[in-house]
C-alpha cells in the first residue's frame, strides 16, 4: 500500500500534542457548566418577570442537558481526540440564545405584533435538529479528506444554493433581502447559511492545488508581491460573483462573507499579504459602487450613517424607514456596564426581528457591556479553536478547510455584531447559534461537526514508537 502524503510548503513550525490525552472528561465538565448557565438565566428571567421560577424550568434544563449529552456521547464514540472546547462553547451560546428568545416571547409588546409566533419551542426543535445533524456529520464523515474529492461538485452546489433564492416561485423577498427560499409545508430556509460550508470545501480543495502557482509566480513591487495578471483570475471571478449577489439578492452580509472567506483562505494558502490588500481594495470599491446604485443597499447605508433621522422619519409614519437600529443603539446604551438584569430591559421596543437579527441588543441591554464582552469572547474562543485545529492539522486540505470555516464564522459574527452596534451597515445575517432561525442553527452545528472531525484527526496521537526489541529482551535478575 502506498500512501501519498503532502504537506504545506510555507509554514515554519508544526504543532502537535504529546501524549494527546483525549480530554473528553474536561469536555463533559465544561458541558455541564454550559447547561447550568442557561438554566440559571432561565430561572432569573422567570423571577424577574413573574416573581416565580418558570414552570418549564425542569423540562427545559433536562431538554438542553439531554441534547448536550447526546452530542457529547457522539463525540466520545466517533471523535475521541477532538477539541474539548468547541462543543461546550457552542452549547452555551445555543442555550443562552434559547433563554433570550423565550424572554422576548414573554414581552407583551411583541405579543401584540401581527406576525407574532412563540419562537422558543421552535428554536428548541431547531436545536434538536441541529444537534442531530452534528451527530450525523460525526458518524458519516469518518475522514474530512473525503470532502476533497467533491471540490468541483461543491463549487457547483454552492452556486446553486446561492442562486436558489432568485428562482421565481421558490425565492421569497422578505423585507428587501432575497436570501430565503420557501419550501411548501416546511417554512422558509436560508440557503446562504449552508453555502458557506460548501464553499469552504471548494475553496480548500481548489487552493490546495493552485496555491504554489498563486504564491510563487509574482513580482516584487514596493515591498508587496504582485501576482501575475492571469493569477488574478480566480479572485476576480469570486469578486464578480459576490458583487452579483449584492446586486440581485441585495444582501451585503452573504456577499461580504463569501468574498472575505476567499481572501482569508487565499492569504493562508499563499502567505502573500498582497492578496489581503487587493481583497480590501476590491471589496471597498465593490461596496461603494453597489451602494451608490442599488436602492435597498443605499437605504441601509443611509440608516447606518444617520439612524436618528431614520427613527424620526419612521415615527412620522413614512414607509420604508425603520427605527430598529436606533432602538438597538438605545438598548445597548441603557444596558450600561453591568446591564439591567435578565427580563428587566426594554429591548422589545425594537419590535420586529428583536429575537433574530437584533438579538444581540437584548443581550447588550440585559447583561450590559460585561455580558456582551463575555459572549463575544466565547465566539472568539470558538474561532481560536478552529484556527488552532488548522495549525495542528497535518494535511493542507484540513488546514485550509478549518481556517475557512472558522474564518467564515468570525466574519459572520463581525458582520452581525458590527451591523447591530452601528459599526458597519446592517445586513440580513443572523448571529450564529444565538439568533432565532432554523437554517442558521442547523448550518452552524454542521460547521462545528466538521471542525470537531478535523480536530479529532489532528489531535489523534501519532502511532506510538515501537518498543526497542533489545530492551524488551533485557531481563532483570534480582538476587533473592
Amino acid at each position, binding site marked *: 500500500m502506498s500512501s*501519498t502524503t503532502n504537506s504545506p510548503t510555507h509554514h515554519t513550525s508544526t504543532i502537535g500534542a*504529546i501524549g494527546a490525552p483525549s480530554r473528553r472528561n474536561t469536555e463533559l465538565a465544561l458541558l455541564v457548566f454550559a447547561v447550568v448557565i442557561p438554566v440559571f438565566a432561565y430561572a432569573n428571567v422567570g423571577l424577574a418577570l413573574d416573581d416565580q421560577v418558570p414552570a418549564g424550568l425542569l423540562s427545559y434544563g433536562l431538554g438542553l442537558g439531554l441534547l448536550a449529552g447526546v452530542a457529547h456521547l457522539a463525540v466520545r464514540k466517533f471523535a475521541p481526540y477532538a477539541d474539548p472546547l468547541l462543543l461546550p462553547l457552542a452549547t452555551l451560546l445555543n442555550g443562552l440564545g434559547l433563554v433570550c428568545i423565550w424572554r422576548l416571547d414573554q414581552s407583551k409588546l411583541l405579543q401584540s405584533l401581527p406576525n407574532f409566533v412563540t419562537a422558543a419551542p421552535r428554536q428548541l426543535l431547531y436545536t434538536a435538529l441541529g444537534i442531530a445533524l452534528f451527530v450525523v456529520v460525526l458518524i458519516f464523515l469518518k475522514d474530512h479528506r473525503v470532502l476533497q474529492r467533491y471540490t468541483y461538485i461543491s463549487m457547483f452546489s454552492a452556486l446553486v444554493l446561492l442562486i436558489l433564492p432568485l428562482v421565481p416561485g421558490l425565492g421569497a423577498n422578505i423585507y428587501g433581502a432575497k436570501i430565503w427560499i420557501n419550501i411548501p409545508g416546511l417554512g422558509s430556509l436560508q440557503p446562504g447559511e449552508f453555502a458557506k460550508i460548501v464553499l469552504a470545501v471548494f475553496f480548500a480543495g481548489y487552493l490546495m492545488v493552485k496555491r504554489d502557482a498563486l504564491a510563487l509566480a509574482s513580482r516584487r513591487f514596493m515591498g508587496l508581491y504582485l501576482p501575475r495578471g492571469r493569477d488574478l483570475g480566480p479572485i476576480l471571478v469570486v469578486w464578480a460573483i459576490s458583487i452579483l449577489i449584492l446586486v440581485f439578492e441585495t444582501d451585503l452580509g452573504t456577499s461580504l462573507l463569501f468574498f472575505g472567506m476567499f481572501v482569508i483562505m487565499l492569504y493562508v494558502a499563499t502567505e502573500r499579504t498582497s492578496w489581503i490588500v487587493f481583497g480590501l481594495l476590491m471589496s471597498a470599491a465593490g461596496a461603494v459602487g453597489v451602494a451608490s446604485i442599488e436602492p435597498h443597499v443605499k437605504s441601509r447605508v443611509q440608516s447606518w450613517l444617520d439612524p436618528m433621522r431614520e427613527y424620526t422619519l419612521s415615527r412620522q409614519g413614512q414607509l420604508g424607514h425603520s427605527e430598529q437600529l436606533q432602538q438597538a443603539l438605545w438598548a445597548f446604551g441603557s444596558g450600561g456596564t453591568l446591564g439591567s438584569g435578565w427580563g428587566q430591559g426594554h429591548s422589545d421596543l425594537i419590535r420586529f426581528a428583536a429575537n433574530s437579527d437584533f438579538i444581540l441588543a437584548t443581550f447588550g441591554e440585559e447583561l450590559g457591556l460585561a455580558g456582551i464582552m463575555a459572549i463575544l469572547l466565547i465566539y472568539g474562543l470558538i474561532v481560536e*479553536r478552529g484556527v488552532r485545529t488548522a495549525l495542528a492539522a497535518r494535511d493542507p486540505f484540513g488546514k485550509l478547510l478549518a481556517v475557512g470555516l472558522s474564518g467564515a464564522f468570525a466574519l459572520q459574527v463581525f458582520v452581525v455584531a458590527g451591523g447591530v452596534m452601528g459599526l458597519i451597515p446592517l445586513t440580513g445575517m443572523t448571529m450564529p447559534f444565538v439568533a432565532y432561525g432554523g437554517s442558521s442553527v442547523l448550518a452552524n452545528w454542521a460547521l462545528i461537526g466538521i471542525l470537531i472531525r478535523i480536530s479529532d484527526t489532528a489531535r489523534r496521537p501519532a*502511532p506510538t514508537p515501537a518498543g526497542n526489541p533489545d530492551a524488551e529482551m533485557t531481563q532483570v535478575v534480582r538476587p533473592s
Partner: protein
Amino acid sequence: MSELTLTVMRLGFLAVLWLFVIVAVQVIRSDLFGTRVTQRGSRREAARPQQAARPQARQQAAPPQQRGQQGGSGRRGRNAPTKLVVTEGTLTGTTVALQGQTITLGRAHDSTIVLDDDYASSRHARIYPDQGGQWIVEDLGSTNGTYLDRSRLTAPTPIPLGAPIRIGKTAIELRK
C-alpha cells in the same frame, strides 16, 4: 421579587458567565503546554527540551540494537520491519506500511512520501527490499545527500532497524 435579590442574581449571572470564559481559557492554557512545537531551522536537540526523555532513551538504546541487526542475519525473520515511520520534520508521525514495494522519497508529487523539505531533491532517495527481504536505502543522486545515522550514503546500504535515515530535516526509521 425584591430589588436586592434581582441585583444579586444579575451580578451573579455575569460572574458565572465570566467564570465559564476563564475556565475555558484555562483549558486552552493546559492544551498549549501539552503540545510540542517543532521549530524549523533550529537544531532538534534545542527545539524539544521537554521531549528529551523519550528520544534520549531511544538514542542510547540504538547502537547495540544496530550491532545486533548487522551481525545476526538469522534474526531477520523475526525482526523484519513492518512499517516506515517519519520521526522528525514536518511529516512527523506519518507511517507507511512496508509490503515489499519500493518507497520513493522526494519533493516530486508522485513520490510515496512527498517531502516538504527545503533540502530535499525532487527524487531524493528510494527504499526497497532486496531478494533476501533486507530493506535497502539508495540515494538517487540528490543534491544534499542522504544520511544513514551519521554517514552519508554513497552506495545502496541495508537499513538496520531503528536507525534514522536523514534527508534534510526529515528523519525516517524502519520499525517492527
